[in-house]
């Protein structure tokens, strides 16, 4: 059973130096309220695992600008010149990972796999320092799990058991990150009573969720009547 808390209470659990995953794709499906609280708390030296650093003033861009990060593990930083500047100035270490590999490495952590073999990156710079295995005559890179201390995710709806429902392309990395961190905090538009979400419509089972921060957002009906 997830506990509903304020954003401040939630991020007080995040210590400087921790590894934090954040859901979102270029700022869509990002838990903005949690990021604001994290910036407000003055977090330092975090390692961020996320698809990208969004844009200045938006999504992970806020963490970059506020100097909360020492390292970013992402697939893309091209939309945020501040990230690039900090990388140039060696304030920020940036590790780039192909997006599908990033997703699978996070999933491997959540699913208890020791790693996965992907053809992505074979014959490129990504191959360097990686173990290469040949299966059925095709070369694959061995990619190992990516865990985090904390995952900050964003969903549309939760019930009080922590079950989550996402909307459209705001789903992206949120479900997989919910499986791969020791502490999982979900920002949601609205929390419904237990049993309001049909079990078939749950996208992330509540057993993965530790804390929920409700931000208000739009009113929704009772999902039990949804089918």
């Amino acid at each position, binding site marked *: *059973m997830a506990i509903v808390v304020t954003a401040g209470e939630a991020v007080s659990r995040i210590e400087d130096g921790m590894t934090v995953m954040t859901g979102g794709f270029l700022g869509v499906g990002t838990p903005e309220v949690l990021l604001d609280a994290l910036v407000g708390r003055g977090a330092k030296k975090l390692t961020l695992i996320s698809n990208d650093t969004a844009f200045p003033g938006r999504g992970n861009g806020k963490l970059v600008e506020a100097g909360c990060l020492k390292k970013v593990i992402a697939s893309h930083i091209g939309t945020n010149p501040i990230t690039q500047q900090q990388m140039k100035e060696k304030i920020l270490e940036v590790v780039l990972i192909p997006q599908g590999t990033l997703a699978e490495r996070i999933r491997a952590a959540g*699913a208890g796999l020791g790693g996965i073999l992907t053809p992505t990156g074979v014959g490129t710079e990504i191959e360097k320092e990686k173990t290469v295995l040949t299966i059925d005559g095709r070369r694959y890179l061995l990619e190992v799990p990516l865990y985090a201390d904390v995952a900050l995710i964003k969903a549309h709806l939760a*019930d009080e*058991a922590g079950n989550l429902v996402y909307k459209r392309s705001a789903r992206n990395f949120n479900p997989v990150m919910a*499986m791969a961190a020791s502490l999982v905090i979900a920002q949601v538009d609205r929390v419904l009573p237990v049993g309001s979400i049909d*079990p078939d419509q749950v996208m992330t*089972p*509540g*057993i993965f969720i530790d804390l929920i921060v409700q931000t208000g957002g739009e009113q929704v009906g009772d999902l039990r009547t949804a089918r």
Partner: protein
Amino acid sequence: MATLEPQDKRIIIARRAARELQDGYVVNLGIGLPTLVANYVPEGIKVWLHSENGFVGLGPAPAPGEEDPDVVNAGAQPASIIPGGACFDSCMSFAIIRGGHLDLTILGALEVDEKGNLANWMVPGRIVPGMGGAMDLVVGARRVIIATEHTLKDGSPKIVRRCQLPLTAAGEVDLIITELAVIEVTREGLLLKEVAPGVTPREVQARTGASLIIPDTVATMEI
């Protein structure tokens, strides 16, 4: 030591195993004796039962006539899903198991040994049913409790020095609960933690195929 009927033994084991549950736990109960544990969840404790065929929030069997053919437990018996439950596919179900998201699994055993090895999926030369989800459960759950009768019907031990049957998993068992005792698997060996009322440590040792570490005082099982 009084002789117990098989059904009494099973209830004692299930009741004692249920005392290992903690509020909010996500738990997978194996088929057979472990399934009985759900009947003895202590008051004030709410657990989420995981059913490896694809949901959390396993509830009691429905009343006759109320069965939904699409809602069954991992033994294909009619089941229910409690409010707050969630359905998913087999990949997610085993990601939950393997990824350490189960606080506890309670399983039966053919043999369990002092290294925490478990054998519960086949007997060579006899029929091989297959391991189903057992190998994943034993490896993946944070805590593995074996709930089993202390001996076979002929009195030969199920708790042994080394499993002779093919293993389900190596070194993963944490606790063994039988109708006679509660035994913890430690680095040093099998530690006798509790004995059933009226049973002496010596009697437990006599029915066990491995040396038990017996502390000066051993608690009595609350059942």
